[in-house]
């Protein structure tokens, strides 16, 4: 008995160790964000230092940081809202009024997700150029909407399917129209699903860098583009780079923590429940 307990204890320790190793780069980034530039590149690396908000302050007050942050919010939140608006009716009809083609449609939707973005970047870029949509944050948001729509539909669909159909039938017997059924009956009971679909979609759009790097430049670029500018010119201002990165990843990391349970389903299209 005591041997199994010891093994158990060792396994726990191992798990903590794994957690520490995996999280370390993020921890180090956060730590550096609170250092002054001098402390950030000192050798040996300083674990103990006088924390300062100087770098964070500097990163935040750079005139364009706010704009990039706002761009990120517009493209992530805007695209998610639009995707939800399209996905809720779609998932609703597929979950409650399935036809022979529903399964095919669902599979077809994921298949678009399997298409690598580089496979379509060129036509998209050309279309955006012709429409004068390059470097336009709303156009990027539209791109993200299309990108995330399958994931959102699937997350919602998987949830809707488990809602007992009787609820909807009862509402219809009481004389509810389809719109009423949707807004008064379905939406109130599917809060968690909508929230997790929204979170997932926001996370994916926020971290996205391929489309944003190629379709935006100065005006409309979100944080992912701004942060990548540190790769060369200002790469050695570590404290500032860390501070900027930290603020860029923090909102989404918190969302990811909150949504971790629902993420699996959304990311695997229900292949793993």
């Amino acid at each position, binding site marked *: 008995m005591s041997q199994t307990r010891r093994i158990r204890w060792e*396994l*726990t320790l191992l*798990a903590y160790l*794994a*957690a*520490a190793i*995996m999280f370390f*780069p*993020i921890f*180090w*980034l956060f730590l550096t964000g609170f250092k002054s530039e001098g402390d950030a*590149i000192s050798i040996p*690396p300083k674990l103990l230092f006088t924390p300062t908000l100087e770098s964070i302050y500097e990163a935040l007050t750079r005139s364009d940081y706010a704009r990039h942050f706002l761009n990120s919010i517009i493209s992530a939140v805007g695209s998610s809202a639009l995707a939800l608006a*399209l996905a809720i*009716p*779609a998932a*609703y*009809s597929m979950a409650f009024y399935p036809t022979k083609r529903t399964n095919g*449609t669902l*599979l*077809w939707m994921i*298949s*678009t997700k*399997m*298409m*690598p*973005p*580089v*496979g*379509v*970047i060129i*036509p*998209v*870029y050309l279309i955006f150029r012709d429409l004068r949509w390059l470097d336009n944050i709303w156009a990027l948001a539209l791109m993200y909407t*299309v990108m995330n729509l399958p994931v959102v539909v699937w997350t919602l669909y998987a949830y809707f*399917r488990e809602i007992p159909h009787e609820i909807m039938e009862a509402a219809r017997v009481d004389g509810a129209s*389809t719109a009423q059924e949707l807004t008064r009956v379905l939406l109130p009971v599917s809060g968690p699903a909508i929230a997790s679909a929204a979170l997932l979609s926001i996370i994916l759009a926020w*971290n996205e*860098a*391929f489309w944003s*790097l190629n379709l935006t430049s100065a005006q409309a670029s979100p944080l*992912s583009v701004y*942060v*990548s500018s*540190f*790769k060369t010119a200002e*790469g050695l201002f*570590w404290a500032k780079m*860390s501070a900027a*990165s930290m603020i860029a*990843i923090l909102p989404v*990391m918190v*969302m*990811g*923590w909150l949504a*971790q349970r629902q993420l*699996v389903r959304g990311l*695997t299209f229900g292949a*793993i*429940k």
Partner: protein
Amino acid sequence: MLLLIVWTQIPFVLTIYHSFRRFNLLNPERQGFVGFSNFSSLLTDPIFWTSIQNTLLLVGAVLLITVVIGLFLAVLFYQDFPGRALARTLVISPFFVMPVVTALIWKNMLMHPVYGLFAWVAENLGQRPVDWLATYPMQSIVLMVSWQWIPFAMLLILTGLQSLSKEQLEAAKIDGANAWQEFRYIIVPHLAQTLSVVVMLETIFLLTIFAEIYASTSGGPGLATTTLPYLIYLKAFGEYRIGVAASGAVFAVILANIVAMFVLRMIGRNLQGGRT
């Protein structure tokens, strides 16, 4: 009536998708009919084959690392222990980090030959610090990408594990199975489907890895880390050779579709099963 509108929305959404897909195929012709010359110029370009090789190397190595370590971590976190939720949250965090930021953390703060943490550790151990990205470019990228994708593998495998019935494990224990036998004969077979989903989905995502390379090595040094997506990017936005880039993109799509076919079949089977 409203139902009709709802129904017509779906084809509408699908049409948007479809147009995106179609354009890709049409595009090489848009520059005037050049037939297969884009393809032939690409296929005779040694860079193309290097990039394919790099892509496969990257995907294969990352897959191996993430699945093995992910499996290990999932089994570890399957046990109940105090503070599990917090520890799990820490482990999966890398997955939510912007790929660009991942590249910056690793490139500058950990792998930097002079100021990086690894260099400092190496010096303290009496070794000469290594310029990781210059000396071992592909290995460094693999490390970076693996760090980001281990949580994905782990999270999925953990979810798969949790659907395993405890009775089965107990039965095995009563029959005298030790921990390794339990793992080998019950957990692994149970996870076969989960693992194949992990492998396929990861392959699809990994085939499109771009930001990490863009922000860390820019495909270099030389061509050491130029993968197919990055090569297409270079051709299109570096050399403006849209036609050649597009033909490269066709290959990228073919590569992804081979994998996607398997994934779709599996998900479809799942969909059918869930319905009955």
